[in-house]
């Protein structure tokens, strides 16, 4: 089985977030980590490798220093790393990113593609499903459990207060939640090997079936008007009231917050 895992180097939000004047993230100035949902996706792939045997290739699009996140993945147990980097790819939104990654993945053989649900820097959850559209394969998002059954995958998809069990023929794409598993640590020996491992570097020329109009800042339909640090939502409040009281309670809260 061949598994491709898309991973992203994201700012370590503990270290503070910095922006470029155009509103995009100043990635060069920030401490970075492997995006948590992607790490869970990688762990899922590595568990499938442990259980069924598989070749796990990790791929990332980013600045040359994004190579670090590929080495981290190899130190955890991935077999190969591919870095897609090119100046013309800079400033990409989710559309241009998914076009780029799909263009790169078209070079590879795969049974399964695993991406994280969303990255903690953009929080869009769009890239994974978009890649599956470009490659014309099924997608199962928000996976909380993955099993292989012959040439199919059986996935538990998280859904508000329940989960759905879905079966899809491979090749297919799965987006993983950080809650899917507890990712393993790198091993010291894995780190030594990862630092010696050859990372494949691809640029624009290596992308298959992608038009220039879909790449980089120019190929990005989304323009960032304003960006800010994420404000964490509270845990919310749960109250048990009968209908009339509940209506009064909600209306009261909305008035209090000047919503109405």
């Amino acid at each position, binding site marked *: 089985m061949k598994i491709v895992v898309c991973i992203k180097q994201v700012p370590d939000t503990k270290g503070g977030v910095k922006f470029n004047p155009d509103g995009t993230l100043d990635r060069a100035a920030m401490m970075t980590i492997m995006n948590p949902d992607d790490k869970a996706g990688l762990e899922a792939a590595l568990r499938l490798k442990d259980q069924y045997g598989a070749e796990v290739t990790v791929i990332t699009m980013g600045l040359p220093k994004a190579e670090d996140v590929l080495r981290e993945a190899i130190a955890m147990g991935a077999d190969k790393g591919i870095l897609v980097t090119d100046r013309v790819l800079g400033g990409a939104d989710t559309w241009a990113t998914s076009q780029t990654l799909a263009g790169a993945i078209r070079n590879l053989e795969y049974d399964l593609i695993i991406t994280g649900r969303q990255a903690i820097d953009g929080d869009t959850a769009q890239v994974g499903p978009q890649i599956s559209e470009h490659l014309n394969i099924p997608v199962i998002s928000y996976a909380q459990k993955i099993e292989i059954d012959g040439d199919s995958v059986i996935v538990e998809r998280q859904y508000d207060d329940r989960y759905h069990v879905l079966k899809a023929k491979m090749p297919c794409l799965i987006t993983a939640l950080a809650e899917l598993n507890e990712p393993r*640590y790198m*091993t010291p020996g894995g*780190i030594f090997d*990862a630092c010696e491992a050859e990372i494949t570097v691809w640029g624009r020329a290596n992308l298959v079936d992608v038009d220039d109009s879909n790449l980089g800042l120019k190929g990005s339909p989304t323009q960032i008007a304003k960006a800010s640090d994420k404000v964490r939502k509270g845990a919310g409040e749960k109250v048990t009231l009968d209908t009339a009281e509940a209506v009064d309670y909600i209306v009261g809260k909305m008035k209090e917050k000047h919503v109405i």
Partner: protein
Amino acid sequence: MDFTLSKKHEMARTLFREFAEKEVKPLAQEVDETEEFPRATVEKMAKAGFMGIPIPKEYGGQGCDILTYAMCVEELSKVCGTTGVIVSAHTSLCCDPILTFGTEEQKQKYLPDLASGKRLGAFGLTEPGAGTDAQGQQTKAVLDGDEWVINGSKIFITNGKEAEVYVIFAVTGMVEKKPGRFMKEISAFIVEKGTPGFTFGTKEKKMGIRGSSTYELIFTDCRIPKENLLGKQGQGFKIAMHTLDGGRIGIAAQALGIGEGALERTIEYTKERKQFGKSIAAQQNTQFQLADMATKAQAAQLLVYKAARTKDQYTVDHKTAYGVEAAMAKLYAAEMAMEVTTKAVQLHGGYGYTREYDVERMMRDAKITEIYEGTSEVQRMVISANLLK
């Protein structure tokens, strides 16, 4: 001369730090309080490959170097001295002598399980009458047919009851060093837990590193196969000294970590603690104390890393001596740990004297680093003997 760490060592440090913060730190206080061996942590460390860092891959290890191993012990000890010494005793005192002096069969038989952490290792040299004076050994081993019969006891054995493989030293005869002057001939053996005649005595109640399993080992007509002799008969003293030279790098790294950990806690605390309307970090006394603590911790780190690097060179050429470097690193790091933790408690004031704060535990943990695997006095003997030879 380049003092920057390579990419792989930086990555390894990140790994060890993350593991220590997430898996070890939350349990450190409880491990100390309950004196319970942190078995679950050791299992996690085994899974992450921490139990065989400098062991070659062909024997199931990680194939890394001594510097990486020292950094692992350092980072673990920053948050928990107990966890640091478990890795150190296992790696330096059990895996290393088997790797260095074992036959191919012994290495194949024992190292894969040790390096993967499936089995824990320990080392038994110290006896009630044989501490610094290792020649004072009373434990005897006599060859009887195809078996060695061991009688005697060992005390203060780290990983004592938790280990499954032990490197044990015993007197196997007398040799005439000079005409009319006889010395004990000491040999080393590999003894497995569960061997009839091998039992455990009392558990030590210690001042610090209270979660480490420190036991007396008792051998009563304990019969082990002849092929469990480690190295040649009579090579025991050399094996013990060689092993302790390496072990000192591990303990130096433990001491370094304890000192650095106490410094980190003290920096955090002095910024928060307010007296006379400002943080105590704003007082010049605090600033000067912190400056001294940090400078000494940095000096200790350089000595420890240099000793580790020198032993790495020995691994390559089997010639480079590292005993003096190891002795200097252990001497300085241990005394630094004691001094820095004592100052840390002082800067924490009354709170530092309570078990609510980590520095209280760290000060108790630091003390042993001046004593085990060669006291500070022994390190001075090793260093000065080399100067005056």
